[in-house]
């Protein structure tokens, strides 16, 4: 299973998580974990997802999420999990 981390960063508003979740479910992407916090007044959310069963490749997922982020006024970006694993785990 290849995990992807989706981060959402921006000003909080109603429906951000809902919109992202709908997009993910429509594209057969399974959510494994969600966490959120506020840093410097900004909404930060992280989702760990499994996109193995999805037909979307990483690039089109990134494009779609960026577009969705524009609509919601936040920044959404997917990154493969390995970059975080490498940096924070020995």
């Amino acid at each position, binding site marked *: 299973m290849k995990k992807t*981390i989706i*981060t959402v*960063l921006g000003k909080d508003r109603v429906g951000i998580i809902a919109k992202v979740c709908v997009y993910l479910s429509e594209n057969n992407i399974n959510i*494994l*974990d969600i*966490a*959120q*916090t506020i*840093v410097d007044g900004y909404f*930060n*959310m*992280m989702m*760990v997802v499994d996109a193995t069963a999805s037909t979307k490749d*990483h*690039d089109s997922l*990134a494009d779609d999420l960026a577009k969705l982020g524009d609509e919601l006024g936040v920044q959404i*970006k*997917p*990154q*493969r*999990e*390995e*970059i*975080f*694993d*490498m*940096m*924070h785990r020995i």
Partner: protein
Amino acid sequence: MISINEVIETNEMIQKMNLDVRTITMGISLLDCIGSDVKSTCDKIYEKITTLAKDLVYTGEEISRKYGIPIVNKRISVTPIALVGGSVCKTTDDFVEIAKILDKAADACGVNFIGGYSALVSKGMTAADELLIRSIPKALASTGKVCSSVNTGSTKTGINMDAVKLIGEMIKETAELTKDDNCMGCAKFVVFCNAPDDNPFMAGAFHGVTEADCIINVGVSGPGVVKAAIETVRGQNFEVLCETIKKTAFKITRVGQLVAKEASKMLNVPFGIIDLSLAPTPAVGDSVGEILEEIGLEYAGAPGTTAALAMLNDQVKKGGVMASSYVGGLSGAFIPVSEDQKMIDAVNAGALSLEKLEAMTCVCSVGLDMIAIPGDTKATTISGIIADEMALGMINQKTTAVRIIPAIGKDVGDQVEFGGLLGYAPIMPVNRFSCDAFVNRGGRIPAPIHSFKN
């Protein structure tokens, strides 16, 4: 599982602190491209580079998208051309033809620099080595992406002073030939002592003869990340400071390791080394000078600078070696003047002189880098500066280098603009006393006593 704080930390490093993979450099051996004449050699070189490196830029971009980390440069290094062209090049113009084909191949692959227009002459020069060195001014003036280097000394061989003398003259000539372009040719030429075979950084990258046919080397950078990390321990003692730098260096290098492994897999080319270097850019927050200031110096160049830099360099290496088993020999801090806003400020404030920089190069990653000096500086003086730097490398068993730009028509108080990642440099004063008789002696300086380890 990864926590949200770890995700935020990584992304802040990338977005706010300019963490990036500075370069993916593909090293390509051209030893099998030697043909029966210049034309057939050029054809083979073009064919081999454009075949092996055709997907390099695309692969770099794909990795960048996948992990959300910028990969700034994609580059190529090749076997020193003096070896490749040795049997077919009879004139300097023959060598320039090879430089032009390298430039064309770099264009075709979409990379921003190609390194390896080089000669290794630490003990003596062959006829081909000398021809190549004499062709450097024209080669750099008639190409855009070709970078050149010459290794003129090593701890094992001593210093080839004939080559050092010749190079002083060639640097002047290169500056003259490219004076309408801010003497840009000199920014693409570096002279080394103890040059490593697997350096991913320009202008000094070449693909050593001891290397495999094709390899991937990665250079990671992140002075901004180190600066931000040590801001959190302001006022605390050296133990805390060192620990902080080491941990940060570890994290940065791990990203490089990931990118290197991925690039190596995608391109089906073995992975060589990761070079973790704090390499500044002119961007605010991407400066080694700024780290030195954060450590506690008013300006880079103030008393204590050499000690601070020695400590920084050592901690960067210590963090890096834990993060990857194949860390490159140059890892540490680069101190190019023109590419680092805080170093430029230090020069302008009168805090940083050429002599202090020379002392700093004893403990930093490489050497006198991107330094502009008055255009009327004599060739022998440039050779003298090079000889000093080569001696530091030879005696201290480290890599040292000089990339110096005599800015034609300019003097102390002026500045020279290179643009882009190369930045701009204030002209620094040079010691005006003569070293003519020293440089003109000729011959070589023997290897030092501690080279006799056997």
